């Protein structure tokens, strides 16, 4: 689900390859030093001199000097080899992507704002914490932060890139295995740094295009009276102060965009599965689940809460 050992992109695979080499050589070096250490305890090469000090056997010092010089030389060779290997991996990662899908990712305390870039504004998708990407096409991320420093990291797909206020940086990868991958903010960003996860769903191009088509569509007006009631609660109980649902009068960008809320698998930045009970618990008192989150509690009655959640569940 999230592991450097299980790469799903050429980029992550190159690093995993490097890692296993480093692990092998590193383990061999460690074992060699431990062997030398243990043998030095066992060896009885010296004799006790008249002054209680050890007198090395004749010629021992020049012999051991050659060994130390050789060990130093081998160390230097290993390190130079490692440096060359690392630079070759660095060159692979430094290539520029061809015809990438561009996603603008903005860090917030403590969630990820996602915008699929498109010249045609009607084709732009605004979502949060969960992204779908096509397998086999490079995906380029433009990274920014709205508040403090965050760090984007998908262990199976790519290493980290920081989101720093005042800077814009990019990173890219190309998923070559379909799957659902988890990542977490990697730079300490305050109270809820621990609960700032994101999900990337890599899927075959056809499936991705279906998702994309659904995601650009606006929501239709609810017809059902319960849903209308739920929508009214959304608009009047404070939800719309921060959250947007396209096609309605809610267009604030303070919190995650909820237009296709139900299409996401998790809520609260990867903290809870997106089930009816969890959404109700979250809306009622998010501070109990994620203390310090910017979302305030909403003291709704059972009927109100039920209608609101029913409405949110239609936002597919």
């Amino acid at each position, binding site marked *: 689900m999230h592991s450097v050992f299980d790469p799903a992109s050429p980029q992550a695979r190159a*690093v995993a390859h490097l890692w296993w080499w480093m692990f092998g050589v590193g383990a061999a070096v460690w074992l060699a030093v431990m062997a030398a250490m243990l043998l030095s305890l066992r060896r009885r090469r010296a004799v006790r001199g008249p002054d209680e000090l050890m007198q090395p056997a004749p010629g021992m010092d020049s012999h051991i000097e050659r060994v130390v010089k050789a060990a130093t030389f081998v160390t230097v060779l290993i390190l130079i080899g490692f440096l060359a290997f690392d630079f070759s991996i660095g060159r692979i990662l430094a290539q520029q992507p061809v015809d990438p899908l561009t996603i603008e990712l903005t860090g917030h305390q403590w969630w990820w704002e996602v915008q699929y870039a498109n010249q045609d504004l009607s084709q732009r998708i605004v979502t949060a914490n969960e992204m779908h990407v096509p397998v086999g096409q490079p995906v380029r991320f433009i990274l920014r932060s709205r*508040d*403090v420093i965050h760090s984007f990291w998908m262990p199976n797909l790519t*290493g980290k890139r920081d989101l720093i206020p005042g800077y814009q940086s990019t990173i890219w990868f190309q998923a070559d295995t379909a799957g659902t991958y988890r990542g977490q903010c*990697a730079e300490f960003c305050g109270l809820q740094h621990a609960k700032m996860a994101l999900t990337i769903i890599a899927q075959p191009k056809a499936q991705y295009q279906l998702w994309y088509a659904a995601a650009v569509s606006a929501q239709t007006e609810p017809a059902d009276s319960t849903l209308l009631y739920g929508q009214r609660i959304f608009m009047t109980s404070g939800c719309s102060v921060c959250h947007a649902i396209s096609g309605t009068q809610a267009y604030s960008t303070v919190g995650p965009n909820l237009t296709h809320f139900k299409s996401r698998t998790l809520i609260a930045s990867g903290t809870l599965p997106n089930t009816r009970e969890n959404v109700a618990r979250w809306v009622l008192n998010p501070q109990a689940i994620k203390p310090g989150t910017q979302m305030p509690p909403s003291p709704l009655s059972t009927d109100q809460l039920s209608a609101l959640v029913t409405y949110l569940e239609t936002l597919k």
Partner: protein
Amino acid sequence: MTGPNTNRTLPVEATVAEDDIERDARALETVWGERPGFWSWLTTVDHKTLGKRLIVTAFLMFIAGGIEAALMRAQLSRPENSLIGPDRYNQLFTTHGTTMMFLFAVPIMTAMGLYFVPLMIGARSLAFPRLNAFGYWNFVVAVVFLYVSLFVNTGPDVGWFAYVPLSGPQYSPGHRVDVWAQVVTFTEISALCGAVNVIVTAFKMRAPGMTVNRIPIFVWAQLVVAFMIVFAMPAVATGSTLMLATDRAVSMHWFNPSEGGDALLWQHVFWFFGHPEVYIIFLPALGMITPIIETFCRRKVFGYTPIVMANITTAFFAFGLWVHHMFATPIPELGQSLFTAASILIAIPTGIQIFCWLATMWISRPQLTVPILFVLGFLFTFVNGGITGVMLASVAFDKQAHDTFFVVAHLHYVLLGGGVMPLFGAFYFWFPKMTGRKLSETLGKWHFWLFVIGVNVTFFPMHILGLEGMPRRVYTYLADTGWGPLNLVASIGAATIAISVLLFVINVIVTMRRPVNAGANPWNSSGLEWSVASPPPSYNFLYAPLVESRHPLWDISVDLPVLTGFRTDRREVLVTTTFSAQPDSRHEGPTPSIWPLYLALCMGVVFIGSIFSPWFVLGGVGLSVIGLAGWGWTGSKPSGHERVSTPAAMPERA
């Protein structure tokens, strides 16, 4: 009595008459000795008293930081644990890091130097005894300030690295970050006082004949580190005291991008200090290993010159690595490559030192006492941390491992393996010198095994956790992540470490209740510090020893030749030339004084007060003028400095 500026040759004597020894010892004890009582406790300038006090205070900080670590491990032992909430947890991990780096590791390594450098080079005191006291009291202010703040729920909570803008006024209102910034300020002052003292003492106060190529390796390490402190500390002083504190107190916007500031600048300033800091902890520990190996292998170390050169090289490289903490930031790739190369190169000098020690052990018969066991524990643990350090030099790999538990594992392998294990070895080794009592070997072996096992059980699983995606500085994690079992293992390891440290404390307490019976040189070791009584007299050396080799106590068959003829009616110290250590002048050292403590309290008013109002700065500076005047006041006494010429009988023996 001879007046100033008269050239006098001090007599060299192979043996001094018993009567003279007794008379001089009594006279020196009157001049140098501490009077009993609380006032004397506050005013002392004896480097041994202050060194011991600094070691004890810093070790208490090790225990405090350890308790914080234990609480964190308890919280992380299972997923979604509700023992400690995020607010408390963030204060705990920040205070743990700040305590261990600023209030334990650097001070205790410096403290070992402040205690032993004069004894190892045959000097009666440090060059600036009152400055030493001032440094200690500043350190105490930092300790009290940080822990009082933590207990009133104002502990810093943005990490020991305090990245802006999270630590800036907008995202961290209140005083928590101010506490961090000012604690760092006090420790900077304290470290700089120690560094300047060590540099001047090691350069100008070595015993006659201790030429540059005869300086003990422990002293070399302390000297190199003192220079590193002088170059590294101003960077963090600029960052925390000048920039972060004024950003917060008077809205300077150094780091605010919307006002033309730069959020990345802080990281450069911090890590330019922060990376050398690691070597400031590590090099003194390496300096402790050489005398331990020499003593218990009963052989002079193989490769004195390469070891000294390795120390100096490491210090240079250490200032060229800081960007490897910033590989995930938008820094040009070509620039990053340079720091990769430097981060890899620094493994070479450390490797050379390790090869030299292994060679020394190879051609002798190590006795497996507790100090040398800790050296073996160092090799077992530190080499692992060094190898992962080389891995982290790779930009590609670092971007996967950075800010994860892999780095937590790496840094604890390096600091516990490379810093604390040699330090424990050094405690067992030099404890008889400091207290006159040997620690129990049996308890020591329990302490050793539990500590080494505990460290490895705690931190080895963290390598795997990091590569499985667990970031650092998280107060909890979801059960779905699958990180639970390895975290539980790590927490069990942490409990093992706690037990082992408790055994050490018990060992110290039990030993201190025993009579003083260790003798001057219980290990039959070679350094000058072992030529004086245990614990050393207040004046350290009755006469200045004459040094003729790197191992003074091993290379002579009878008593050390000494230089006599010092005045015994004042605190006289011998100043020698920097390279060849020829007697140059004699100098009157300062007497006990309350002003260092007073001035440290003034610093407290300035820096702690600055959090609340800039007016405290003005008031505190005003108060400190009085302190400076008192400190420098000598009355109508003449200058206590006079030149001497080299005695005719300087070392000639082969």
